[in-house]
Structure formats: C-alpha cells, structure tokens
C-alpha cells in the first residue's frame, strides 16, 4: 500500500512537472519591433518570439502574455498579475531594489530622432524641447546630462511621436530601433547624431527579464534557458529577423 502510494505520488509529481503552467509574462505593447500586434491581432516582435522560446525551454509551452502599460509594469509584477517582465527593461539600481533580474539578454543604443529640416544637434541642446518616455533610461539621461534642455515626458511612445510630428518637439530620445521603426516611412524625420550607450551609470548593464525577488528559482531557469538559446543559434535566428545589427550581449 505504502509503495503504491509512493509510486502514485511519484507519478503525480512527474505529471505535475510535465504539465507545468505556462509562465505569465508582461510586455508594454506596442513597442515595435520588440513587441507589437501583427495585422491579424496576434502579439509578435523580437521579445515575444524570444520570450516564447524561453518559455518553451522551461514549460514546453508558449508564454501567457499580459499587456501592461509601462508605468504600472513593476507594481503589476509585485501584485502578482504576472510572474515575469520581458519588456525591454534596463537593469538599474533603483529597479534592483524592487525586482530581481535575470542575466541581460540584449542591449540597445539610444538615439535622437529629429525633423530633417530642424537642424537639431545633440551637442547644442540649450532650450531645445526633447521628448522622452517617462521614467526610462532616456529620461534619466536627458534629465541628468542635458540640464539645459527642456524635457517633455510622455506616458506612451505614441503620444510622443504625435507631438514630434505636430511640431511641438525639437527631437525625441528613444531606443534606436524603436525610433527607427516608429518613424519608418516618414521622410521628414531622421536619426540625428551618433547612437548613445554611455555612461553605464545611466544606461546600465543591458536589458533583462525581471522577477519578484522571492522567485529566484524562475529567474535562474530563465537565465539558463537564455544561455542555451544564445549558444544553439536560436537567439541569432530571431535577432536577424528584426535587426540588421547585433544587439546580443
């Protein structure tokens, strides 16, 4: 009797393991090309594909995606609305106080985008109106390094682009691929100046998945899965679909 029970328990725990629930993952979409809705309504993008690959490694299922606005994304994680953030979140000290990060999985440069005719020069920002998304590293960079500029903070990237097109901003400062994608086909706007990745004190070590501090186990599993995907070529395959340059770290 004891043996059968033990065996039963063993089988149960095995099936429980195999039938692991899919991981609930938060993204702030649209944030192309990292996460956005395809014309048919499905969520796609670099992070969505990479995230699904990671979830497949761990649970043999795609992730259970939750769309969450950026400014509530950490409170939502802490409130257990989802278990992981996979949404271009840079590692920095302030966030480390609230969440646990995996190993970084990519790093993107930031860049200015401005009207072609405006003659915006990032070395002369005195009195210029520069749009950023609130509480991003770009926000910190402009606030700390370009004190002579006027920072205009937006809740969503869409609103920011609308104001750039409306002529209300001299430039926007965003993740380079995001800016490229948002202004695709708009000949009046172009990247202005060099891409920016320094200083590390602001831009951090890179982009990583975030977890609740007590979920050490899950964070470890995701780091292992990411390492495996980087080594076996899956990561490169997904990256090449979305980027002409390398963002791998």
């Amino acid at each position: 009797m004891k043996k059968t029970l033990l065996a039963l328990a063993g089988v149960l725990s095995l099936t429980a393991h195999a039938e692991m629930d899919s991981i609930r993952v938060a993204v702030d979409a649209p944030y192309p090309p990292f996460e956005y809705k395809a014309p048919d309504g499905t969520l796609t993008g670099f992070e969505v594909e990479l995230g699904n690959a990671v979830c497949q490694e761990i649970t043999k299922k795609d992730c259970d995606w939750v769309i969450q606005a950026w400014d509530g994304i950490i409170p939502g994680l802490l409130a257990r609305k989802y278990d992981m953030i996979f949404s271009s979140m840079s590692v920095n000290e302030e966030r480390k106080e609230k969440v646990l990060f995996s190993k970084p999985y990519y790093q993107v440069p930031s860049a200015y985008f401005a009207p072609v005719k405006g003659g915006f020069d990032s070395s002369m920002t005195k009195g210029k109106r520069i749009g950023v998304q609130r509480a991003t590293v770009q926000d910190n960079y402009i606030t700390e390094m370009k004190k002579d500029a006027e920072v205009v903070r937006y809740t969503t990237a869409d609103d920011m682009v609308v104001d750039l097109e409306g002529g209300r901003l001299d430039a926007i400062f965003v993740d380079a691929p995001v800016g490229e994608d948002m202004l695709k086909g708009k000949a009046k706007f172009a990247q202005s100046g060099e891409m920016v990745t320094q200083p590390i004190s602001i831009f951090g070590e890179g982009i990583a998945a975030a977890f609740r501090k007590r979920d050490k186990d899950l964070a470890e599993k995701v780091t292992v899965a990411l390492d495996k995907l980087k080594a076996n070529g899956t990561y490169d395959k997904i990256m090449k679909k979305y980027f002409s340059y390398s963002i791998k770290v």
Partner: protein
Amino acid sequence: MDALLALIDTNKIFNLTTLGHYWDGFVMTIQLVASSLLIGLIISVPLAVMRTSKNPFINYPVWFFTYVFRGTPLLIQLYMIYYGVTLIDGIQESVFWVIFERAYYPCLIAFTLNTAAYTTEIFRGAIEATPKGEIEAAKAYGMSWLKRMTRIVLPSAFRRAIPAYSNEVIFMLHASAIASTVTIIDLTGAARDIYARYYAPFESFLFVAAIYLSITFTIIFIFKQLEKRLLAHLQPR
C-alpha cells in the same frame, strides 16, 4: 521643524527634489484652474444673459455652445484642441503657433470653454429664478432693460448662484488633473513622474490627494465666508 527635516532626510521618495517637483505642480494647477475659472466667469456673464433672451437667434447659439461643451467629456475636448490644431495646414508656421506649441494654452482654452459652458447654465438658472415682483417693481420705476439687468437681476442672480458655482470651482480643480495627459506637469503630472521614478504609486498619489483635499477645503471655506456675507438675508435667524 528639525523632526520634519530629519524625516525628509530619511525617506527615499519625499526628498527636496521631489517636494520641489510637487511644488511646481501645485503652482501649475493653481495657475491653470484660477485663470480658466476667471476667464470662464467673465465670458459666462454675457452668455448667460444671451441665453435667457427670447430671441432664438441670440439664445440658440449659446444653447448650442453649452450643449456641446457640457455634453462631451473634458478629456475629449482637450484632445481635440491639443492634437486637433496640429492637423491644420501651415499652423506651425503661423503666428498662432506661439500659442499652440506648448500644452499650456490649448489646455487653458479647453478648461476655459468647459467651465464657461457650465457657469453660463448656472447663471441662466439664477437669472430665470429672479422673483417676478422685483422685475415688475423695476419696470414700474421706469428702469430701462440695461439698468434693470445691472441693478436688479444680475446682483441678485449672482448671489443665488454662489452655492452652485462653488461646486463648479471644485469640479474644475478636480478635472484639472487631466492636464497631465498632455505633458503638463500639474499636481497629478508631478505625482505620475514621482510614481514612475520610484515605483511608489501609493505614496506619490496619496500625497497628491492630500494636497487636492487641502485646496478643496480652502475653496469651501472661502465660499462659506462669501455666502455668510452675501446671502445673509437668506440665513435663518
């Protein structure tokens, strides 16, 4: 005072920088609400008089204005004005762009028109509630329409409108929170910045709610005093 400074020293969120940010937001809120209320009040008086006119060509345009601005959400009105103007061809090169480039004036215009619409209707009600006897007496004295309006109807209508108008002032204060949706850093905008920076929604919004409450109580107090003075004849003895 020392205890307060020590508290500011020890907590992470409410340091001098963020308190300064809240202060700027406070100034912006007061400035926006006060100017829109003042301009709205000035506009609404002639509109209310027109609104009580029996001539449909005078009455209906004003009716249409108040109907539209009271019948649509303030947020939509703000979006229409803020984002709408940028779609006008060549506006960026025109002289008007000085006004519309920043979010402040579009916001002020939206708030002003909105409060003007509500205040017009408040005054219209007060004007129409003028006792018939007062008007007849004024007519019997041979007063012209203008004299009747400025000496009899409007002064008593303003007094009657005070309680309803104090509500409008408080609603306007609360509605001003939506200015933060178009990049204006008012009290709510400041709270959003600090919330996003420290991931502390409860602290930052609770603090700002306390500030709104104090402003509201101040407004209520002022109107209570006003009512005591101006509506003394209606108080029970």
